[in-house]
């Protein structure tokens, strides 16, 4: 459904994307992972036909996204990463404008989405919070029943409850055989919905993997509070990878081998387990490093 081949765009400051290549199959939910500034949005901007590729090409539904951009866009639902609507309108007017441009007259789907996302569409846009604008954006993206969804950091600004609603929405559309490309800087955000994911770093694709494989590869840190110092010492004596010990609080690094962790922990008294939030680079640190030495 989406083919990106050798896409290259170098900006004057030396950054950009280099030889980006991957494919998204029909009916697949594809994650596009990378830290901020890695080139996710630049790649997506090529898919929307905003920039002419210096080299390579992107194709959606058989149409080149630069040369036949309006045809490529016709079946795409796009949610930009930076939301900025036009001033002087309310949400409903904006939705109507977009519906008109999408050539969509049916209001059923639109109203259903507004109902689910629970917001007042007649609020003037300049008075909307970031989360509310994101909801308007989601309505606009989903209301015309597109074949392909391109979502740039879709859950930013949504509260956990609405993130859940959003994920349900994605899964429903996936069940209908729709294709998704979803960018994110957090693995946790996409692992619930995606089948596969590409990781991009400094403008280059580092890997394209199944989500299950990525889940296995990720490096997690657990902060475990033990009952006393003796227990902490016993853990230290085991062959778990200890990142840090502070009194009876131990930080343990786990990569795939959860059984070993459980085995060792069962020998001591645990009072609390906390998983530590990490950036994408930290989660896939080993992988990133390994890849670099190979180069």
């Amino acid at each position, binding site marked *: 459904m989406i083919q990106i081949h050798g896409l290259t765009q170098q900006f004057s400051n030396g950054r950009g994307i280099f030889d980006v290549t991957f494919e998204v199959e029909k009916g697949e939910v594809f994650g596009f992972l990378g830290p901020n500034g890695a080139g996710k949005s630049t790649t997506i901007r090529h898919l*929307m036909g*905003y920039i002419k590729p210096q080299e390579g090409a992107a194709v959606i539904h058989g149409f080149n996204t630069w040369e036949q951009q309006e*045809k490529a866009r016709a079946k795409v639902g796009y949610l930009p990463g930076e939301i900025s609507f036009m001033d002087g309108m309310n949400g409903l007017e904006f939705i109507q404008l977009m519906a008109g441009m999408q050539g969509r007259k049916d209001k059923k789907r639109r109203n259903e989405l507004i109902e689910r996302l629970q917001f007042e569409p007649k609020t003037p846009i300049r008075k909307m919070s970031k989360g509310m604008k994101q909801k308007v954006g989601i309505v606009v993206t989903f209301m015309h029943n597109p074949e392909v969804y391109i979502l740039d950091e879709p859950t930013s600004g949504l509260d956990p409850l609405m993130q859940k609603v959003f994920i349900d929405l994605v899964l429903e559309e996936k069940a209908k055989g729709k294709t998704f490309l979803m960018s994110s800087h957090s693995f946790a955000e996409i692992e619930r919905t995606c089948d596969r994911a590409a990781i991009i770093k400094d403008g280059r694709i580092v890997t394209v993997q199944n989500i299950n494989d990525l889940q296995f590869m990720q490096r997690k840190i657990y902060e475990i509070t033990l009952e006393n110092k003796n227990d902490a010492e016993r853990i230290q004596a085991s062959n778990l990878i200890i990142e840090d010990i502070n009194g009876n609080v131990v930080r343990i690094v786990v990569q795939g081998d959860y059984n070993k962790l459980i085995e060792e922990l069962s020998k001591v008294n645990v009072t609390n387990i906390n998983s530590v939030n990490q950036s994408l680079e930290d989660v896939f640190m080993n992988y990133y490093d390994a890849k670099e030495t190979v180069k």
Partner: protein
Amino acid sequence: MNISLFRQMVKLNMKNFLCFGFGSALYVVLMTSLYPLFADNTEAVNELIKIVPETMKNALGFDSLTSYGGFISAEYFGLFFPIILGVFSVMTATQLLAHLVDKGSMAYLLSTKVSRSQIAFTQGFVLISGLLLIVSLTFLGGIAAGEALIDEQYSLEFYTFFQINFVGFLLFFVVGGYSFLVSSLCNDEKTSLGTAGALTFIFYGLDMAGKISPDFEWLRNITPFSLYNPSEIASGDAEIFVPSLILFGMGCFTYAAAVVVFKHRNLPL
């Protein structure tokens, strides 16, 4: 041309259109209401005009103050009308493309099957519609005020007044056109506003300079403003067919160029 976009854009800009339109119309009415004062004191006014240097008279069109047509074309259409419509053209042209690109809202407009050319064309059409509305209101205001306030003997022929407005519209069709072209080239709203504003100011200034000094007469060849001579149209000395055709051609060219530029360039969205 996309109807939904056009409708929403006109709705967004209507307040501006009406403000400028009624502002311009009100000014014509105001100036017209002043004319009887001049007409009753023609001699005194003529004495006064004699003091004014010849060159200034040319620039301000003072030599034709003795008739209503001469008065209104010199005092309004030669002076404030270009300023009001110039400001409007530069502002609105920037608002319709560069502003949306700069703010990023263009990303939404460009997320559907509507092509870039269609969007640029629609936005250009919004600008032209605005100009047309403003000039129409000015025209109607002038006609109404002329009927109500000016004695039959001084009054300006309907057709002549129409010509003054028509060529005036064409001039700002061109000013709007190059401003729109600038707007289509700019990623930054302020650059667009500054460039189009400076161009307009220079073109207006060149025309003025050329009128004031015979040495700089040639300057008038490089500005579209010299193709619009309301005073001469009022006195019946102007040939309007060729200038109108040139203005129309320049306008069409600049709008078309803007659409082509917008279609092919990289957008920072």
